[in-house]
């Protein structure tokens, strides 16, 4: 029976199953997806790895990268839900389903999620210099709001408003470039 199976000629190629290659091609996309649906970094690390444990324990057919990516994301999504059921909701959003729709829409057929980050980079360049500086200080330099306020010579509330507006603009820009999602 074993021989019968492996000698079929309808497209099955055991050799195409290379777990390391699968991970190399899809890990980053799964990790970014998990982050996008609200997982903290370390949990995204854990669940991305768990995703590959799950699919390697229960294999599937590798027909094309996009289908594989889509399937892996759904496995990761359900593992995240299972994690919430088991261990509580600390650090996890209740809006994962919506975020999933956004990420799926934005990432499109790009399995790694680079498309989204590239678009983000382009949108970032369209922000005002002050908004860019504010966000760079926050995310690059990890400056406190107080430091940013001092540097930009505005109040801390001003910094908050500036960043909120900037993010609203980034989101609109991303929706323009990558597609909007019906709420």
């Amino acid at each position: 029976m074993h021989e019968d199976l492996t000698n079929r000629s309808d497209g099955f190629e055991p050799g195409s199953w290379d777990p390391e290659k699968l991970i190399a091609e899809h890990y980053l996309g799964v990790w970014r997806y998990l982050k996008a649906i609200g997982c903290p970094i370390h949990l995204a690390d854990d669940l991305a790895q768990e995703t590959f444990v799950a699919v390697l324990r229960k294999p599937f057919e590798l027909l094309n990268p996009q289908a594989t990516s889509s399937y892996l994301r759904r496995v990761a999504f359900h593992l995240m839900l299972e994690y919430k059921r088991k261990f509580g909701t600390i650090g996890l959003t209740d809006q994962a389903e919506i975020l999933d729709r956004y990420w799926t829409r934005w990432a499109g057929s790009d399995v790694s999620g680079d498309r989204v980050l590239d678009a983000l980079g382009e949108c970032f360049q369209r922000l005002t210099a002050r908004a860019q500086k504010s966000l760079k200080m926050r995310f690059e330099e990890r400056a406190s709001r107080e430091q940013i306020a001092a540097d930009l010579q505005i109040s801390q509330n001003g910094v908050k408003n500036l960043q909120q507006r900037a993010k609203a603009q980034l989101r609109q820009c991303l929706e323009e470039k990558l597609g909007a999602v019906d709420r």
Partner: protein
Amino acid sequence: MSNFEFENSKRPEEPVLDATVDKTLDATLDATLDATLDAMLDGMLGEWLGEEAGGGQGSSKAFDPSEIYRSVLKRSEASVFSDQEHAQAASRAQRDCLQESSPDRLSTDRLSTDRLWRSVAIGASIAVSIAVSIGGLSLIGRWVPRDLNKPVEVGQTSLDGAPSSGPRVSEPRVAEARVAEAQVAEARVAEARAPEPTSNGSQEGVVADSQIADGALDPERRGPMQDKLAVQRQSEKNQEQVAAQDPPQGAEMASALPSAGVLSLGTLEDREIVSVIDSQFQQIWKSLGMPQSDMVSGGQASLKKRGLTADRIARLLLHRVATDSELEAIRLDKLSEDTQLERLVASWISSDEFDRVWSTRLANFYMGGRIESSQQAVVFREWLAAQIRDDVPLGQVQRQVLLGLSQADHPAYFLVDYWSDRGDRWSLPPNSPQVAWVGYGDTEVKRLEGLSQLFLTVTSNPAMVCTQCHGAEGASAPSWLADRAAPGGGLGGSKSVDFDSISALMVGIAQPGVSELFRRQQDDQVRKIAARFPDGKRVGSELSFEQTIDGWLEQGSHSHSGLLNALWRDFFGVGLESAFGFDGAVALEARRDLVGYLGKQIVERRAGLRQLVYWMLMSDPARQSEESLSYAQYMVMDAQRLEDYLQRQEVFKSLVLDDSRSAVRDEAWLVGYASALFPEQAEGPERSFLAQPSNQVQGGSKRASAEGLDLGQWPRGLLHAEIGYRVAGDRARRWADLLSASELNDSALIDHAYLMTKHRFATAREIRAWSSTSWTKSQRSSAILRLLMGVASVEL
């Protein structure tokens, strides 16, 4: 120049809906969604701008496929999920994809069977591939599903050709056939997702889902967090209690209870609040010249980076160390350290033990720092535990406690009697000129004073009690009191609000049926005392007690400083700000600001106790290195190191662990404590204990020893008292000078020490204990300062 047209505009309005309710709901949902998407964008910006460059393995700049592959292999040996859970996730994913597929997918039995066999064969090939790649067939058993370890069934053969002891493959099942079918369909329509899923999922998958939902899977690993946080815990008991406590217009109160939702900790809001706490402390530490590298900013740092260990988390949350079994369970988990710790936090912060521990702390606050074990006190603590468990906002708890004073069947009602009769001596002497309430005997005065004191404690105005003696109605408070006696502790209240006006407000509680309180003036005229709101306006006679309380809470709604300080002290060992300034001089304004900010967050975000504790746990002060410092170590420190230590202690940089909460604190204990603080020998200007014989330094005084104190156990709080004395701020020193310059006798000075630090009079045994020491032989202002710090540092 921006390319955006709406640089300063908000996003376009949503279409106007006819129904107001729908509009409100939509606005709420939009706000929630916006916040969620903001968080998503934060994560993307973090990666793109490099915040996470050195972070997780999945970070784009740190991504190493080989390393990840090895991690996945390791994880397969000890996953946090069971095989069944992995299989369920995969099945659900397949079902999702199936639902999104077009209806004309292939579904013949033959095809299903073919796909099944492919699936099985693929599984086998993967197992072999992995086993080879890691250099041993022994790992096959870790990779292949447990199904494969079942005995070979009829018509099957072993995949690896091994006899019956090797990995086996089972008979194909219908579900797997459907799974294989789903994969085919998924491949065809992967990018053509239908907006609305169809409902043709696998029957078996549905059954399995409900098994999970019912908790059939791995029940032991389902932490209590699920019970507490994932399920609405507005218990029937609590609802009944609230219903019973409600006055006729209680619908209002019921509607103010927490909505039926899930408490999520670690949300964006929580992180924002933690960021503010961190920011304030960074400011404080910077002012002390502490290195930047020692700080973790932004509320974003992981628990691991924060330096929180399981043991420390247990101590902070549960006031105990982690048990062996808890540590063993952590060790067995193969999750990342951060995830382990987060799970621990989730588990402990939602446990019954947490509710119990913190209800005791909360009860302590409402009972003026005393431990009481009467049946009524137990019922009250249980009620508080229920409030914590149900995540009732702290502001609501405060309100219920105050309203409970007027409801005989409320658990908080026992506080009326408790505060009326909780000490050996409470009221001022009957003939005292300050006690001039018309028609009131000693018992009634005692009761009303106690209740007024309770009200001032709950509403964070303990210093107001001073106006009972200093600055009665019509006279202004002494200048040294003015800055602390204002209602609301900084709300800028009216001078006309004094202790008597509070007593007039509470008179109906002290004596049901009585609504007015009169004072006899010095000219022997009788004058009605007006109850007042914090802004000085009179409380109209037509207002009910509930309306009056609501008015007070409304005007001082952001003033939970008393409760906040008490909880902060319970958590960190040192309060943020004391009413009279016995908390040192370092960054006083920054700490005051923080108290104000946190009080506001408690109200505006309707935060419960668990949320507040979570903020404290995740803040930088919680991660600061601790120093276990014995008294002997403290005594031999050189001057510079001592100075450094005291500064760190002042701003929670370190916590003194010389603490035994199990110590029995009776009068003998207090005598030992007081004697150690005021040794009989003449004192030097600094660290006078150095002059003491070692047996006294290590174990308290000889007298304490003779009275049964354990020599190996240093009285709790003594080190705190000594440190507090050394780092006392200007304000505390001014208080000591003022008292020193007064003509108060020793007993009255001890009373004042308790009034200013504990907001109550000293009991007879406390006066006896302090009087038995040599404190009066020291230089007066120094002795009074030490007395103040000593009293502040000890709780009986």
